């Protein structure tokens, strides 16, 4: 793969099966088997034949309606979900901040969770301990909340800590899924600042957001996912325009009708 690429996605398809019937329990499985019933499965095609190159130092925005496959795409780039077809080549260290927030343990303090989050993303204990102070400072929680259990946090504080961990891992590729909506205006400004910094260091950022202004402000290119396919790749303003029109009118632009 060419050296200037951070991520290369070749003809990627991701399908998974979901069980639509009952709860998946041994009891149900035995009951079904005794009645000779089959499990009703539904195949979800989350991503369909997607090809995409993301160069180092770029910020890519992904827009699309709910269920378009944005989070699936992010997870597959992070190596969490395996492709069904095609392949993904990633060059560099990945840091993720995906929709559900990090695996925080609510009984532990913010500081402990920072350490745990760093270890989970592959740092050694010394490395993360050296960074903990900087991360806590970046999160800038009020009144010593950083040493209180995470279950006492407001969702905004939770989001701030999670974001601070993700951006301070010095990742080569940062994947952010709806991660910028948590903080208040001042924290948002700070996080934009930090992301521009990461960019100027030639790190790559991929952002999924429903806040289209964020996409416009931060990204230098964007793609529009619709039902698992990439409808368009362009400058963010152009993509956002098309996408807004689609949201207004509810129909796809005429040149996409054959897709």
């Amino acid at each position: 793969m060419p050296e200037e690429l951070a991520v290369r996605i070749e003809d990627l398809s991701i399908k998974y099966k979901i069980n639509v019937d009952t709860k998946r329990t041994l009891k149900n499985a035995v009951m079904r088997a005794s009645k000779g019933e089959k499990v009703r499965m539904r195949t979800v095609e989350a991503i369909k034949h997607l090809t995409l190159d993301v160069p180092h130092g770029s910020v890519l925005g992904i827009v699309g309606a709910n269920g378009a496959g944005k989070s699936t795409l992010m997870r597959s780039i992070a190596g969490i979900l395996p492709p069904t077809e095609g392949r993904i080549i990633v060059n560099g260290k990945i840091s993720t901040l995906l929709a559900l927030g990090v695996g925080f343990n609510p009984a532990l303090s913010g500081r402990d969770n920072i350490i745990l989050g760093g270890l989970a993303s592959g740092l050694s204990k010394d490395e993360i301990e050296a960074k903990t102070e900087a991360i806590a400072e970046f999160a800038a929680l009020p009144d010593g909340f950083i040493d209180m259990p995470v279950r006492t946090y407001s969702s905004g504080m939770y989001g701030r800590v999670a974001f601070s961990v993700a951006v301070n891992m010095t990742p080569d590729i940062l994947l952010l899924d709806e991660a910028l909506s948590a903080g208040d205006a001042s924290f948002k400004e700070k996080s934009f600042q930090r992301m521009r910094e990461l960019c100027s260091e030639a790190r790559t950022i991929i952002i999924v957001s429903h806040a289209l202004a964020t996409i416009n402000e931060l990204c230098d290119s964007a793609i529009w996912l619709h039902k698992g396919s990439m409808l368009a790749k362009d400058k963010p303003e152009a993509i956002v325009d098309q996408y807004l029109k689609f949201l207004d009118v509810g129909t796809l632009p005429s040149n996409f009708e054959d897709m």
Partner: protein
Amino acid sequence: MSPSADFQPKIQVFEPHRASLPPVIPYLKEFWNRRSFAIELSRFADKAEYLESKLGKVWLVLNPLLLAMVYFLLVTVIRGGNTKTNGLTTLAHILIGLFTFYFASNCITAGAQSITTGGRLILNQAFPRALLPFSSSISAFQTFLPTIPVYIFVIIIGKIFFPATQVPRLAISFLWVPLIVALVGITGFGLALLFATMNVYFRDTNKLLSYVMRIWLYLSPILWLPSMLHGWHRIALYANPLGPVLSATSNIWIEGKTPTLSEFIGAFAWAAGSLLIGGYFFVSRERDFAVRI
């Protein structure tokens, strides 16, 4: 643009798979590199538990201890109260057997839940998933460790009251203890991998497991002595994944003897078998976990 200054090329290729093993050597390497994550995860889980209930950890030791007392009463009552001669030996056998069994049992039950309860971590980070049950096994080991001094304490007190009973003092055979404990841990971890995978597909595996563990306890040489089995009945001892190690444990702690060759072979075979089968089952399916959680 060319990559950043501190950029170290680290090319990862994600390709389709069909219930087959990912490359084993890189997987093990990644597992090894991230072992401190498993250790810290277990440490933090213990810390969280302690913060939630200060007695939490103590109960994990008290539980097998009290159970041992109950079983001891049960066994001596069934036997007709003939306790003067070998009461302490029986208690010692039940105690060390239960403590060892609970080590394996804690590995398995906690490990079996580690994937389904680790949902957010699994959805957010890519790492060898076997680290989660491994972390549970570390916790189980740390619960097991303090039970050894508890055992020694009970025996010393017992010796004061029944000086005649022969529970061995420190003997050379005790050098085998670390190896036997390691084999218990490996067997427990291997089976945890197996049940953790099952629990992802069938969420009631855990409920079933609590009954399995109870029956397993009665089938293991804890409330009875391995020497009570003769002839082909001894198959029951070796068909039990924990049979040979528990028999060896009793041999070391109660008889003060080196475990027999068949105990060694049985224990090694079960440890290797559990780890290989559990490991294969788990690792070949772990990339499927993120969609099924």
